[in-house]
């Protein structure tokens, strides 16, 4: 299969593209082929189960659930950590593309592009990133699909990096752009959580392509799809930018 890859992806453009506000009304319908729940339709005598109005209502509740989850989130509460023996091998690969299609980022020309409310926006090379203090966590990755797997990730606290580059820590969001076009945004409290990590290693080895080489963001306090791989751009923002799956209907906060 052809790999949509290479390093010449313009991270700056990816960020700029993703960081503009998504026009809300034009968003695609996410309740595709919605079934009418027979019993429910009979009970109510009308078809409230599908269609744009129920989709709008569900989106409002989902936004309310974002708000609830932000309040439930305790910045000091750590996700459980596990012994080496609990690590799952082989660790599942999961993405919206196949394993062969994972983008092949060139480590020599790689740069992490910074944008938004950040003082020092010079791009970071991989060597510069590797020189940052690192720590290891053995935590559970929980997929939105329901399965979970314990893995070992090594890297730098995102909070450390954000302070280092002079990010506005009072901003609302941190947005990530990925080499393959994926994007995701998270709340600042989660970005500053002690276990939110710029990950460079998996299982003690350099992060393999399938798990997000050269850098993924690992946060055991959020569902797996909120943990972007192949991150090439980072922006600190006050405007909501959603994300690849969030625009397709997954709840934005998706905290654990």
């Amino acid at each position, binding site marked *: 299969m052809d790999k949509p890859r290479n390093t010449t992806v313009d991270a700056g453009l990816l960020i700029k593209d993703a960081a503009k506000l998504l026009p809300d009304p034009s968003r695609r319908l*996410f*309740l*595709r*082929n*919605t*079934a009418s*729940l027979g*019993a*429910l339709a009979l*009970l*109510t005598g009308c078809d409230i*189960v*599908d269609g744009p109005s129920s989709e709008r*209502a*569900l*989106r409002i*509740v*989902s936004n309310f*659930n974002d708000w609830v*989850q932000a309040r*439930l*989130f*305790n910045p000091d*509460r*750590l*996700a*459980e950590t596990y012994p080496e023996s609990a690590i799952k091998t082989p660790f599942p690969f999961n993405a919206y593309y196949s394993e062969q299609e994972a983008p092949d980022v060139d480590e020599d020309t790689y740069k992490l592009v910074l944008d938004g409310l950040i003082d020092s926006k010079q791009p970071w090379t991989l060597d510069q990133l590797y020189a940052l203090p690192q720590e290891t966590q053995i935590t*559970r990755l*929980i*997929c*939105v*699909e*329901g*399965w*979970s797997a314990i893995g070992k990730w090594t890297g730098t606290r995102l909070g450390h990096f954000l302070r280092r580059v002079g990010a506005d820590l009072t901003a609302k969001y941190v947005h990530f752009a990925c080499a393959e076009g994926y994007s995701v945004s998270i709340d600042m409290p989660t970005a500053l959580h002690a276990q939110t990590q710029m990950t460079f290693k998996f299982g003690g080895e350099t992060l393999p392509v399938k798990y997000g080489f050269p850098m993924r963001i690992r946060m*055991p*306090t959020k569902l797996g799809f909120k943990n972007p791989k192949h991150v090439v751009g980072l922006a600190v923002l006050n405007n909501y930018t959603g994300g690849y*799956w969030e625009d*397709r*209907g*997954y*709840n934005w906060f998706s*905290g*654990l």
Partner: protein
Amino acid sequence: MTDTTNIETARGIEAGPVIHPLYVRITHWINALAMLVMIGSGWQIYNASPLFGFTFPGNSLGGWLAGGLLWHFAAMWLLIVNGLVYLVLSLATGRFRRKLLPIRPREVVGDAKAALTGKLRYDDLSRYNAVQKLVYVGILLTGAVIVLSGLAIWKPVQFRPLADLFGGFDAARYVHFFAMAAILVFLVVHVVMAMLVPKSLRAMITGR
């Protein structure tokens, strides 16, 4: 809720005493709706990563995983708020104590035998037989288990002690599933009984 009876007789409404006060009827039907949505969307979520070697029939509520999740995490508010209203009122009015207690094992065995041999009478809907008491208490507890295990799955980090109570995230998924299965069994028997004894259905609509 003895007041209800007085008010309604004062209004000159015919027929016997109120079997199910208004709050019971309203919360019952809201719960029925919320449960159907929770089960339908729950099947959709289950299908994304089945715990066993089967999936539920296609096109469950929501159309795909994201839709199922949105329905599930919307209907949960309806289920929880409605359930709390019911619990508080039932406890405050003493309905639980009056209707569901005591449960005597000897009576349960006797009534179960009578029910299975078709000899159990359902003349007085205002009094539950021992089997009904046991089943209703059981389904209330199952309701508590499904809500708590659901919260453990939703927030295994923030509600970590709760997740630990169920044996961790993965185990909580199984608990959540089996609680759903128990509710399904209850639902089928409950609906069959309501059809066999139609006046019990009428009582849950009109109150008498």
